[in-house]
């Protein structure tokens, strides 16, 4: 556009990643130098740095796609779209971490560091052009999360961390094993070349199919989908809230960028093999998550289950195997980011004052803090998919993509699960609004959380009412794959 400002090709594609790496270094050094007030200053640096990274990511929007580092790194619209989501999630997570007392006692510097390394891993996952790069990036995410999940150093948190570590390592192993088959059958690790080989007619190879299913398993683990969803509720309940928030938004999105890159971009010619499986798993995941959430009494554990359900919804878009499905996934993920982050902001503010994550303690929240209750109400309705909130249009697109692809039963399950999820979300609403509080003292909301909540509310309502911009962005990003 502007001839005066020419971005040199090549390394400029890596600008956000380079900035993020610099930020990581800064935090690492800062944590060593500033012992006393590390928390406040480092969170300021992290927020400012992430905001800068966000601008760099935004600046890459609408730039032509390009590959650097000998095909290792791809900068395209899909990657940029996901990096936007990752940045928002990371930024919010930093602010949540700042308000989590249990973390403050333990020292926050390292935690910020882990958030940032996980973010870098997510960025690289979105941009990976090579199987090895993809694996390394995913490991970077997972290892950061191992530490974050067990950060509390108390029984529950450690148990969660161990569970996540053991299962996560198995999933990584499966992934690597699957990659080996993909590499072995196609003779290349470069995703672009691999796509050419597969499109060239290599669809009957049983080894390729085996590799596909191994890779699929690992994706299902990352995004907590049936049959690899069992870790989610335990980890969600035990891990520190910021880790959970980041896990539920960032890690899930990372799982789906891999799914889009591998299943849709690379292996769509083998759709006949994997689509029926994903259709089945999607329905099963939706039901497992939403039915499992019903009896929960701990809010984080409930979100552990509900997040499984959302993973199932996102799988609908994969199962559709179409442009519309991809567009729907992208819209849903962006909407889900605002919505779920809003929910975790409320959970953080609430537990900061009351020290509780039990749903029954939310009784009468509408009188203790009308603002928090209203925000939670919005977030829960958006998660359930009630118009005019962002979550509604996401579900609308996903179900439309299922109907469009001829998966009528899956669309029906998705639709029925809306009713199921409404039940347990509305039970929380009822607790907040209709029940009498045991302790009527007000719940204060720290200013940073208040601002973030307003932003998330604007996101939920804005994306739910004026869907066009995000629909168009999602279409532009989905165009990368088709």
């Amino acid at each position: 556009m502007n001839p005066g400002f020419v971005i040199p090709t090549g390394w400029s594609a890596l600008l956000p990643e380079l900035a993020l790496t610099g930020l990581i270094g800064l935090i690492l050094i800062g944590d060593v130098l500033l012992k006393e007030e590390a928390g406040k200053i480092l969170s300021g640096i992290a927020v400012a740095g992430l905001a800068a990274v966000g601008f760099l990511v935004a600046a890459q929007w609408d730039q032509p796609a390009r590959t650097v580092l000998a095909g290792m790194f791809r900068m395209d619209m899909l990657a940029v779209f996901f990096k936007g989501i990752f940045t928002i999630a990371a930024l919010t997570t930093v602010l949540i971490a700042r308000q989590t007392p249990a973390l403050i006692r333990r020292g926050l510097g390292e935690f910020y560091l882990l958030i940032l390394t996980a973010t870098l891993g997510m960025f690289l996952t979105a941009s990976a052009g090579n199987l090895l790069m993809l694996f390394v990036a995913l490991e970077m995410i997972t290892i950061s999360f191992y530490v974050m999940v067990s950060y509390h150093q108390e029984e529950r948190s450690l148990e969660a961390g161990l569970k996540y570590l053991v299962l996560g390592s198995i999933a990584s192993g499966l992934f690597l094993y699957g990659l080996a088959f993909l590499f072995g059958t196609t003779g290349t690790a470069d995703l672009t070349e691999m796509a050419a080989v597969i499109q060239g007619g290599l669809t009957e190879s049983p080894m390729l199919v085996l590799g596909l299913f191994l890779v699929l398993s690992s994706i299902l683990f990352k995004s907590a989908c049936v049959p690899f969803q069992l870790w989610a509720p335990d980890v969600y309940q035990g891990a520190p809230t910021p880790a959970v928030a980041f896990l539920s938004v960032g890690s899930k999105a990372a799982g789906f960028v891999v799914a889009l890159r591998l299943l849709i971009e690379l292996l769509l010619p083998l759709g006949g093999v994997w689509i029926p499986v994903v259709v089945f798993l999607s329905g099963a995941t939706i039901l497992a998550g939403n039915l499992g959430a019903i009896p929960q009494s701990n809010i984080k554990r409930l979100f552990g289950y509900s997040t499984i359900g959302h993973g199932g919804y996102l799988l609908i878009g994969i199962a559709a195997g179409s442009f519309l499905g991809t567009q729907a996934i992208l819209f849903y993920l962006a909407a889900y980011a605002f919505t779920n982050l809003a929910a975790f902001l409320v959970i953080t503010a609430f537990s900061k004052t009351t020290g509780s994550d039990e749903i029954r303690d939310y009784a009468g929240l509408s009188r203790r803090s009308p603002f928090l209750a209203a925000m939670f109400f919005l977030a829960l309705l958006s998660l359930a998919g009630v118009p005019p909130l962002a979550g509604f249009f996401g579900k609308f697109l996903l179900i439309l993509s299922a109907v469009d692809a001829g998966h009528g039963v899956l669309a029906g399950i998705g639709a029925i699960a809306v009713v199921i999820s409404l039940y347990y979300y509305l039970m929380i609403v009822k607790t907040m609004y209709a029940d009498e509080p045991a302790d009527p003292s007000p719940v204060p909301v720290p200013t940073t959380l208040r601002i973030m909540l307003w932003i998330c509310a604007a996101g939920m309502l804005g994306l739910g009412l004026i869907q066009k911009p995000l629909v168009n962005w999602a279409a532009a990003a989905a165009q990368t794959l088709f």
Partner: protein
Amino acid sequence: MMLGPVSWILLAPLIGAALLVCVPSEQVRWVRRIAATATGIPLLLALSLIFRYDPVAAGYQWVDRIPWIPSFGIDYHVGVDGISVVLVLLHAFCAFTGVLVSYRISQRVKEYAIFYLLLIGGVFGVFTSMDLFFFYLFYEMAVIPMFPLIGIWGSKKDRDYATMKLTLYLTAGAVMALIGLLTLYTLSPVKTFDLIALREAFLRQPLPPATQWFLFPFLLFGFGVIAPMWPFHSWSPLGHAAAPSAVSMLHAGVLMKLGSYAILRIALPLMPAGAVDWLPWVAGLACMNILYGGFVAMAQKDAKFVIGYSSSSHMGYVLLGIACLSAIGLNGAVLLMFAHGIMTALAFAAVGHVYDQTHTRILSDWGGLIRQVPFIGVAFAAAALASAGLPGFANFAAELLVFFGAWESYRWAAVAAVFGIVTTAFYMLRAVRTGFYGPLNPKWTGLKDATPFEKIPYLILITVLLVVGCWPQSLLTLIQSGTGPILEIIQQASVGVLP
């Protein structure tokens, strides 16, 4: 771009709700004033539309159209035709009088008013949308605020169960209808959610009869849940009973009409062959509604349950009228939606007035109230007589049309449905007798009648019932101009189906 009156009808309550968010909750007077203004403006606009609507030109008038998501063929597209202009007026009456009745609410007034206005905005949206996406969006928007409205301000005894059941039933119906709508969208050659464009596309190139036969039930039963079609009606009397009076007024007065309206507006014109196949079954279900609802109402002791079951019984007449697929039946159905809406609003307002002071709705506990609250007693008696089909009230004209329609189309159904009138007369008059006549229960000597201000909503509703009852043609001309095009489509389809 300039928005027309229809958009303002729809936006006024929503803007009111947004304003209320900014008003401090102690300012109860201002909250009430804003709520009354936000529903008063739509009422004035709706009245002006009903006088200015041109039934000769027919079709949608005062149309506003803004492209919303062009890549999916979604437009903000609103307007009113002869059917919706009548229902918009009904809703405007119920909403405005509901706000006046809600002046009695003293707890958490601001939150109440916000949810109430959102509900009202959603219903206006459903009646005016010409785009299926927005239709669905507003439909869900109208359902969800019921949850807090009943859950927080409802009567303590059964509100938790009632409100959850209502929300889940209605949402289940809605998502079922959504699957149907999305399938229609994907099957349509034009890939748009615009109702008019879809209707024309399906006229030129109808869906195969087998597809219509398969898809029609999704919309029929999906929207039928809120209609409330037997056997999916059980959420409705419970919801009526648990809800605060103004919410019952809207719920029975307007919300239940959304179902039959949606069937009439979307299912019939888009899948005429499916309608011809399925509607005889609907006639049977409608008879079940009428008789089952009527008999259950006869056994009720609680005033709100009597009216609740009576509503589900009377909505059976609406469904029966639609099932006739004849001009007289459809016109009767729409007129009955209007008449029944006003009538139930009146009845629920009166019951609510008594309940707020006695804290019991068991009719036999009341006794002789007419001496304490003569105005309310007369209002309730008027509603009861209207409901029983006394000539002079709008309900009489409407039910008569439905009977004529049913006699032509389904003689057996007409015969069965007539018994509904008998049951109505029985339970309604008995309710008046046990509740308001007989010896005065000494407990209620302190009961207060309506103040002059509180009388306003009752007077409005009774006047409407009588005016329309004495001059039904005023609305029927409009209704006719709306049902005519739908019938034409049905007739073309039946010619196509039958050899």
